[in-house]
C-alpha cells in the first residue's frame, strides 16, 4: 500500500472527525441535518476507499448503505418529521457551544493518547490511525448526545457515533461480518427514526423534547 493510499485514507478519517466537530457547532436544526448528511458522505467515501485499497469488494455494500440510507434517506425523513411536527428549530445546549467544543478537543486528545498507547508497533500504522479517529468520532457522538436537550439532536449524535464505529470496523483490515454489522446498525437506526415518529403520535405528546417526556416517568405521581 503506497504512501498515496495511506494519505487519502488518513485525510478522509480526519475529515470525519472535523465534520463531527461541525455537528457540535450547529445550533439550527436544519443545518444540523445537512452537516449530518455531509458526515455520512465522508464516511461512505472513506469506506469505499478502504474497500478499494484492501481490495475487499464486500466493503462496497456498507459504503453504499451509508451513502444511500444515512446521507440521503434519513436526513430527508428527519427534515420532514421536523416540519410536520413543527419541532422548535433551535437546539438547546446544556453547556453552550464554546465549552462543548473545548470538551470535544479534550476528548480527541484523550482518544489519541489511549489508542496510540494501546496499539503498539505490532499493528500497521493505518489501522492505528483509523482506530484513533474512530474513537474520537464515537466520543464526540456521545458528547453530542449528552450535551443536547432535544431528541432529534440526540439521535443525530447517536448516528454520528455509529458512523465512527463503522469507520473503525472498516479500518480493521479483513474484519468479517462488517456487512452484517452495518446492516444491523442501519436496522437499529431505522427503528430509532420510526420510534421518533411513533412516539410523536399527535394525541400523546406535543413535542419530542426529552424533558417533556420525562414527566411521564413511572412512580412520579
Amino acid at each position, binding site marked *: 500500500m503506497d504512501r498515496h493510499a495511506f494519505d487519502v485514507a488518513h485525510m478522509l478519517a480526519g475529515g470525519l472527525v472535523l465534520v463531527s466537530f461541525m455537528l457540535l457547532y450547529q445550533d439550527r436544526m436544519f443545518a444540523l441535518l445537512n452537516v449530518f448528511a455531509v458526515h455520512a458522505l465522508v464516511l461512505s467515501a472513506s469506506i469505499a476507499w478502504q474497500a478499494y485499497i484492501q481490495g475487499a469488494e464486500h466493503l462496497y455494500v456498507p459504503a453504499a448503505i451509508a451513502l444511500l440510507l444515512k446521507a440521503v434517506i434519513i436526513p430527508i425523513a428527519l427534515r420532514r418529521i421536523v416540519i410536520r411536527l413543527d419541532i422548535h428549530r433551535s437546539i438547546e445546549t446544556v453547556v453552550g457551544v464554546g465549552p462543548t467544543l473545548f470538551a470535544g478537543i479534550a476528548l480527541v486528545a484523550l482518544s489519541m493518547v489511549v489508542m496510540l498507547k494501546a496499539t503498539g508497533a505490532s499493528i500497521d500504522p493505518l489501522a492505528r490511525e483509523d482506530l484513533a479517529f474512530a474513537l474520537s468520532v464515537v466520543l464526540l457522538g456521545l458528547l453530542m448526545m449528552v450535551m443536547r436537550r432535544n431528541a432529534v439532536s440526540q439521535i443525530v449524535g447517536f448516528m454520528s457515533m455509529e458512523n465512527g464505529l463503522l469507520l473503525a470496523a472498516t479500518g480493521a483490515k479483513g474484519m468479517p461480518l462488517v456487512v452484517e454489522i452495518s446492516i444491523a446498525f442501519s436496522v437499529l437506526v431505522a427503528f430509532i427514526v420510526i420510534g421518533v415518529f411513533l412516539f410523536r403520535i399527535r394525541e400523546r405528546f406535543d413535542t419530542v423534547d426529552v424533558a417533556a*417526556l420525562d414527566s411521564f416517568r413511572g412512580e412520579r405521581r
Partner: protein
Amino acid sequence: MQVGIALWGVAVLLASAGVAALIASHRWARHVGYGLCLGACLGLMLASGHYLVLAPAPQSLHLPVGLPWTGAYFRLDPLAAYFLLVVNLGGAGASLFAIGYGRNEPQPARVLPFYPLFLAAMNLVVLADDAFGFLLAWELMSLASWALVVAHHHDPDNLRAGYIYILMASFGTLALLLAFGVLAASSGGYSFAEMRSASPAAPGLILLLALVGAGSKAGLVPLHVWLPLAHPAAPSHVSALMSGVMTKVAVYGFMRMVFDLNGAPAWWWSVLVITLAGISSLLGVLGALMQHDLKRLLAYHTVENIGIIFLGLGLALAFSAHALPAPAALALSAALFHVFNHSLFKSLLFFGSGAVLGATGERDMERLGGLIGRMPLTAFAFLTGAMAISALPPLNGFVSEWLTLQAILISPQLPSWALKLIVPAAGAMLALSAALAAACFVKAFGVTFLGRPRTAAAAAARETDRASLTAMLAAALLCLMAGVLPGPCLDALAPVVEALTGARMPPQSWLTALSLVPVAESRSSYNGLLVFVFVAAGTLLSIAVVYCVGSRAVRRGPAWDCGFPLVSPLSQYSADSFAQPIRRVFGRVVFQAREHVEMPPPGDARPARLTVTLKDLVWDGLYAPLAAGVVIAAERLNHLQFLTIRQYLSLVFVALVGLLLAVSIWT
C-alpha cells in the same frame, strides 16, 4: 449411636411441621401437632440424657446434604448433648402447654406449621458440626420464630417487632458468617473438625464477631432492643420457647465458637464479656421494672438472666486465660447450671402469663388483679417461678447465683488489673440485679394475682385447662428439684465442663447428704435439701404449735380502710405506682425518667394527670440515628430515579471517560 437417634428426632419434628401444615384448620390439629412435638422432644431428651450419663467419646455423622464438597457434619459431644437436653426439655414443656393453650389461638394455621420447624432448627443448631449447617440452622431458627412473631399480623406492633427482629437476627448472622470466614480461611475448610485442629488467624476478631452474633440473638445490652418487642408478640408458648430456649441456643453458639473453636483465650476477652454481662443484667432488670405489660416484663428479665449467664462465661474465660482450670470449671458450671435453671423458670413464667392471657385476654397488669382467687394453681406455679427467678433459697435460681458468687470470690487470684476492678463491680451489679428482680416480681405477682380485680375481664377469669396446668406444675416441681438437689445436676455438667476447661468441679452428689461444696469444705457449702427440710419442718411445727395453743377461730370482714370505704379497685397500687420509688431512685439516670403532674385549677372538674416520660437510651443513641441515616441516604439517592435520559447518558459518558483516563494513566 445417640447422634443417629437425635437426627431421627429432628426428622420427626420436620415431618410434624409438614403434617401440621396440612391439617392446620382441623379440630384435632393442635393435639396431633403439639403431641408429635412433645414425643419428639422427649425422645431427643432421652437420647441426649443417655449420652450425658454414659459420657462416651463424641459421635459424629456425615450426610451428603448442604455444602456440595464438604457435606453436612453432625456431632454429639458433651456440650451439644447438654444443650440438646435443655432445648428439648423446654420444647417438651412448651408443647405440653401448647396442647391446652392452643385452643385460644385465633389463627392456628399460622402457628402450628412453624412451631415444629422452630424446634427442629434449634436442635439442628446444637447438632451441626460444620459452618454452613450451623448458620443454616441458626438463620432457619430466626426465620421460623419471625414467622411465629408475625402470626398475629393484624396488630401493626407485631409486624414492627417482627421486622426489627429479622433485621437484628440477620445482622447477627452476618457477624457469625464473617467469623466463620476467618476460621475457614485459616483451616481451609468449613467443617468444625478442621477449624478445631487449625489455630485461627485472628482469635480476637473471631471473639468480637461471635460476641456480636451470639450476643444479638441472646440479648446482650447494646443488641437487646428487639427482644422486649419480639418475645411478647409471639403466642405465649412460643415466647416461652424464644426466651427460655432460643437464648440458650445463642449461648451455645457463643460457647461453641469461643471455647471450642477459637483456641486458648486471651485475657482481655473476659474484660469485654464481663462488662457487657454486668450492664446487661442491670439494664435488663431496670427495664423490666418500668414495664406494665406482663410479657414485656418477662422478656426484659431474659436480658437480665442472659447477663448472669455471660458473667459466668466471662469469669470462666478469665480463669482459663490465666491457666486456672479449677475456678474456670466452677464458673462454667455456674453458667451452665443457670442456663438450665433459666430455661425452666422463664418457660414457667411465660406459661403463667399465657394462662392469664388466655383466661382474661389481657396482658396489661393495670387491667388484671385478684386472679389468685380464680386461678389458684396458676398463681401457685407463677409464684414458684417468681421466687425461682428472684434467686430465693429453696429454689434453683439461688443455687446458680450462689455458685456465680463463689466464682467471683475466687477471682482475686486473677493477676490482671482490669479484672481486679471489673469483677467486683460485676459482682455488685449481679447482687443489685438479683435484688431488683425480687422487687420486680413482687410487683408482677402482686399486681397481677393479688388484690382486687381491676376490670370485669379479670373478675370473670377461670382456671386454665389441665394440660397447661400439668406443664406449669411440672416445671415448678423441676425448679424445686434442681434447687433442692443441685449436686446430681452439677455432676451431670462435669463432662461438659471438663471438655471445655480441662478440669471439673469436685464430685458433689455423694457428699454428706447431698450438700454442694464447690471448692473446699472449709470454704463454703450449701445444702439445698436440708434448708428446704428445715424450713418446711419449721412451718409445720409452728402451725402445729399455734393450732394446739392458740385459737382456731376465723371471722371474715371488710379490709381495714382507715375510716373511709375504698370502693374502687383503682385505689390499689398499680404496676407504675409500685415501681415509682425505684423509678425515682434508679430511673432518673438510666431512662431519663421524668414525671409531670398537671393539676387542674381549683373548681375545674377535669381529672389531674400524671405523665411519666421514659427514654430508651440505647434505642435513641444507637438505633434511631442509624435508621435516620439510612432514610436520609435513601432519600437523597432516590433522586437518581427521576433523572432525564440525557443525565443517565452523561453517567455512562463520565464512566467511560474516567476509565479511559485511568487506563491511559496507569498502564
